[in-house]
């Protein structure tokens, strides 16, 4: 039995709804799901205060959320399995600390989507806010695994301190993409903001429309990285607009950031010397 929650009452202040996860809702009927607690600002509330809850035939691990949920935070937090389908926008912290399963957002998401996630997949059909796949302030490691696909644009600090996993952005991204990156891969099909890869130790950032390369990066070569073909074919299979020219193209490899260990790489399509 899958659960379908439709937003009936727009919250006045953000709703903290980590309850909205297949791990917590599996096996519950509509009445039990409706009685689960959420925090409305600093006041306790229940799911039924804001959502109409209906059960439908299907798998236990499917949760469908409908409406403009841009004030609903922490959807899918720490989830390990199942699918959350959000038919609309979602608020901040979607899929943080996620370990498995999949979240699909048909609209936009707020800041911190996929922050410190460890596994699973998040697909955002619209735009994402700042710090997608990033580390929280005071932490050491951002995204630790899984995949985060943003079909639209992403904000600043994309993949801040990420350690593993794959982030792909179909549109543009803000400043400081891959800042302090430890490892993992970020691919941006649109334009990148300033200071991409600043402070990166290891890892890969790929840009298709050039970038301002920091002076602490050194030119290596222009070549066709085989692994990138594989990743780009994977992104195309996920519906991202990857072109044949990008798959078969040559990339300029810059290594850095030499203010850090300098084992990271910035790959820019074409000869960007």
């Amino acid at each position, binding site marked *: 039995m899958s659960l379908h929650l439709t937003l009936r009452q727009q919250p006045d202040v953000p709703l903290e709804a980590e309850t909205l996860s297949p791990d917590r809702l599996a096996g519950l009927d509509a009445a039990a799901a409706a009685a689960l607690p959420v925090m409305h600002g600093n006041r306790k509330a229940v799911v039924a205060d804001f959502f109409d809850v209906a059960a439908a035939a299907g798998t236990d691990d499917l949760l469908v959320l409908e409406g403009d949920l841009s004030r609903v935070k922490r959807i899918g937090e720490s989830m390990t399995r199942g699918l959350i389908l959000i038919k609309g926008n979602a608020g901040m912290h979607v899929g943080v600390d996620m370990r498995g399963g999949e979240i699909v957002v048909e609209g936009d998401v707020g800041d911190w989507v996929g922050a410190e996630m460890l596994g699973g997949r998040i697909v955002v059909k619209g735009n994402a806010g700042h710090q997608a796949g990033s580390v929280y302030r005071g932490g050491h490691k951002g995204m630790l*695994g899984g995949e985060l696909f943003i079909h639209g644009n992403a904000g600043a600090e994309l993949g801040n301190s990420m350690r*593993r*996993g*794959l982030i792909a952005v179909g549109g543009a991204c803000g400043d400081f993409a891959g800042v302090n990156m430890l490892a993992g*891969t970020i691919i941006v099909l649109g334009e990148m903001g300033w200071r991409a890869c600043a402070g990166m130790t*290891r890892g*890969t950032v790929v840009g298709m429309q050039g970038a301002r390369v920091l002076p602490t990066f050194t030119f290596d*070569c222009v*070549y*066709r*990285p*085989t*692994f990138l*073909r*594989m*990743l780009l*074919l*994977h992104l195309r299979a996920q519906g991202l607009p990857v072109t044949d020219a990008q*798959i*078969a193209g040559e990339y300029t490899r810059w290594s850095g950031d030499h203010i850090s260990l300098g*084992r990271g*790489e910035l790959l820019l399509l074409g000869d960007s010397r």
Partner: protein
Amino acid sequence: MNTSTAYRTPLIEHHLLKMTTTTTIIDTFAEAFSMWGTRLLITAETPSWAMTSALSVTGFATSIIGCKCEAGIERAVPPEETPDGRPGVSVLLFTVKSDDMSKRLLERIGQCILTCPTTACFNGLTADAREMVDVGGQLRFFGDGYQMSKQLNGRRYWRIPVMDGEFLVEESFGIKKAVGGGNLLILGRATRDTLLATEAAVVAMREVPGVILPFPGGIVRSGSKTGSKYKTLFASTNDAYCPTLRGFAPNTQLPPEAGCVLEIVIDGLDLAAVEEAMRRGIRAATAAGALQITAGNYGGKLGQFQIHLHSLI
């Protein structure tokens, strides 16, 4: 690889027209052995370089007796089917023990694929793999600390810097229980007739997925028996099928008309694939005018599998 028409050269057409003799298929069985098998998928910038690397990695891998493994090319793989969208070649490799597989892969990938311009090497045995062996995880040390890894869909790949850019190799390769030593002995009146019939069988058998014919051109002329008059040898020429020994050999198996015998050895990832290859080989050799088709065995005392020729027709 080849189509069924590819081997129908004018010579063969002529041969087929002339053929009036029916082929005798002996009521016997091929004795095959349990082995471990794996599949490598090699890609490169061009089909030619992928094939060059595949030929190299399958070189000197005809018989487990002298080569430590048996290997062959399974098929050319179009770019649409490869992980990196480049042209590829799939290769099968077999060993007797699972422990040997990691060593053989390390040697062969390290010497024949890593060294070959523009290539990459992927695990081609995923869904039905019984065990995984570490290969890329060992080869990465060639990178001297400059190697990098990437993960995709739960699989890890190593990027090893080399002088033309990077060598991409998958960390782990799947292995599974397989079947080695399926065989057909094809008898003919003379060398030319026998060669044509055996070549026709090889072409037909190579159409079957999951099998290789590890000997040169898929054919072996030096079939062997176990043991020898020389104590240090544990295999020696199969005198029962040597035409020059018809008058000497105590147990010659040659019919009076036979003047040449060629053998096809088949290794496959499963018994069904080996049987299907043998079935097609029998049909093709029969159509091409083989005098007799039989198979090698050890009385059923050594191999785990007995493939009866009459059950295939």
